[in-house]
């Protein structure tokens, strides 16, 4: 079942990509997913795959948004719940079953993010990205995680810089360790 979904997903992504290449305008593909009712997105090249959430092994003494580690094709990846990280869960009943994980990868990190539904890809013009979201009032530098805002008709999509979330958190964790 996992493979089926994945294949579909890959096909879907591929088709979108082809469409994009026909025109010679600067375009980006983003992957959009919902967190706490809002739409968030990442650049498509940051996302490696989407899989059904595997069993997660909880690691003791980790921040609550780090759900643990899971086996994705023989790789052991940390699984993050961004709704918890961003404080988007107000009540216990909002804790939806998160069925899928997005595997994200950079040179340094490889990890997974919990989402409820299979995300969509969107083709957007680079000019539609507002890279200077000075409208955002963040708590304790939260806005550092925001790469930009995308406005599409009546949608507002928050473009995330996923890797700065963890790198920042590692710094903080290190600080705690020192003071402990």
């Amino acid at each position, binding site marked *: 079942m996992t493979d089926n979904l994945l294949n579909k997903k890959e096909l879907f992504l591929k088709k979108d990509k082809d469409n994009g290449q026909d025109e010679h305008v600067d375009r980006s593909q983003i992957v959009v997913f919902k967190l706490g009712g809002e739409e968030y997105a990442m650049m498509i090249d940051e996302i490696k795959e989407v899989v059904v959430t595997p069993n997660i*092994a909880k690691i*003791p*003494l980790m921040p609550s948004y780090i759900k643990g*580690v*899971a086996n994705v094709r023989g790789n052991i990846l*940390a699984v993050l719940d961004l709704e918890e990280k961003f404080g988007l869960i107000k009540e216990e009943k909002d804790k939806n079953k998160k069925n899928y994980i997005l595997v994200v990868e950079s040179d340094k*990190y490889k990890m997974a993010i919990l989402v409820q539904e299979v995300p969509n890809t969107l083709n957007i013009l680079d000019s539609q990205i507002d890279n200077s979201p000075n409208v955002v009032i963040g708590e304790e530098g939260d806005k550092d995680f925001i790469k930009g805002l995308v406005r599409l008709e009546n949608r507002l999509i928050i473009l995330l810089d996923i890797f700065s979330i963890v790198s920042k958190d590692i710094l903080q*964790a290190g600080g705690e360790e020192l003071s402990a």
Partner: protein
Amino acid sequence: MKSREDELKQIFYAEALDQFEELNRLFIVLEKNHDDKQSVNAIFRITHTLKANAAGMGFDGIATLSHLLEDIFSEIKNGRLSLNQDTFNDLFRANDKLGELIESVTSEKQVRYKGLVAKLKVILSEARGEERVQQASRDYVGEREAQETKETTETKKEENAAPKAEKQEAETANTQEKESTPEPVNKLIPKEPIIEEEAAVEETSAPKISFSDLIQVPVHKLDNLLNLVGELAIEKDRIAANHKGRGSEYARLYRVTSDLQYSVMGVRLVQVNVLFQKFHRIVRDVAALESKKVNLVLEGTDIEIDRNILQIISDSLIHLVRNAISHGIETTEERSKNSKPETGTLTLSASNEKDHVIINVIDDGKGIDAAAIRKKVIAKGLLPERSAMQTSDHDIVKFIFEPGFSSVEKVTQISGRGVGMDVVKKALDSIGGKIELSTKKGKGTTFRLLLPSSMAVKNALLFELNNAEFAIPLSFTEAVVSLYKKDVHKVSGGLVSSYLEQNMSVIFLKDIFNLKSLEDVREPHSLHKSFDQTKNDTKLNIIIVKFNERLVGLVVDKLLQQKEIIEKTLSQPVDNAYFISGATILGNGNVCLVLDIPGTLNLLFNPVKFGSYDYATI
């Protein structure tokens, strides 16, 4: 035996080719700028290594030539010789010749180099002039003497070298003539004709590109391969589990996968010689600095061990060796006073024992003074005076592995760099190794390092806790027992029970895994929670682990099986998780976390951080 020699030869050849290529590059840099200090230093370094390797392998031609180059570049480095076009051309030719010699290692072709050697010696002796500086002779004392009297002795030396060269290089009985006769005839071989002859040969030898039969593979590629094989092994387990009772059908799959697994692990194995070889230089340097005479003996150099383990212990081994020389082996005067041979002996030996590789660092020095250690233990407050006095000498010396203990007051350039034996111990702990020490006053000290031969696969005990599976490496487990609640007693903030009449602390793993933060362990009764909830007639499943001579019973929900696991380290952002050293994937596809026993026990029993847990240091 033959294949071993061939293998070594291949390794040497591959390394030498690399070094030669680097030399080529440096010489070309140097051609453009004769004063390039960096290149001079680099050439000096490379020729030095090449010389040592070649001498070790018995390739006298390469050794002689690179030794001469090394000497010349040492003179250039020290400003006693400056390069002009003529000398440079000679050196360049020497470098080419070196390449040919390296080539001849595999081709068995005879290469003439004596003429060039003579020429280089002329350059060298001119540079040194008559006022040869009295410098501490490095190695090859004999050879240096040979240089002093130039040609006459030179021939003699060549004749010494020739039979050896013949043995090594002419294995396939190459009948090409040689310019120096193997028989010890004390005849002076005229210099000039040889050079001419060589020059003639040189013109005909066109530049060639050669490849060695040995390929170098980045370790991460091997790691990747090992990961894949690990997955295969897991898949194999899964299939077998799904089709119980039809085992024979999978016998072949089983065999192939495990063969594959061991082959890949075998690829990662290297000979300890790779590491041991480097100690010739280290021992020499440290001994020179301490003005002591030390002879290094290497044993069991062909024992194989996982390359990553070798890397991890290399610093530790350096530390142990330095310590042995600067603190163990006495000065020459002291030694002769105690009627010991003037030159101390340091032995590095490797051997196999079951699944382990044992490396011994043995010195014949003065041994560790237990009384001094005892004094220090008391002074540092590591033990109360009374118990320190009762502790046997054998046990008290083990305190050198405690953090914060460094047995020498004076910080020396060599051994006192703020790191102590505790760092060595930590490095060994991290790979599931052990270090033991035995010492005899006046006779010497032996450090015994017990290392796993492969880091990839270890035996582990699987257990269940909070509906999740965990593993403990078998190297830490002592026993598995069932106890009733009444066997466990509250003592201060913790729990204590006994095993084979020894006291051990008992910890409900649940209590520490459910903590919100590490600080909470200091909360009163935080380690009593599960105990208090346990009914009196419940049987407790306890895994007894032993680390640092300390027995600790870990209470788990359920004991599962014993299994060979492939432990993978966790990557960021969970790489420095508390209590967990890594993870493995089980046959059912689930991730199973591997408990970091040294880390966990250090966290819990470290009296610096958790002052209220002194009871654990009983």
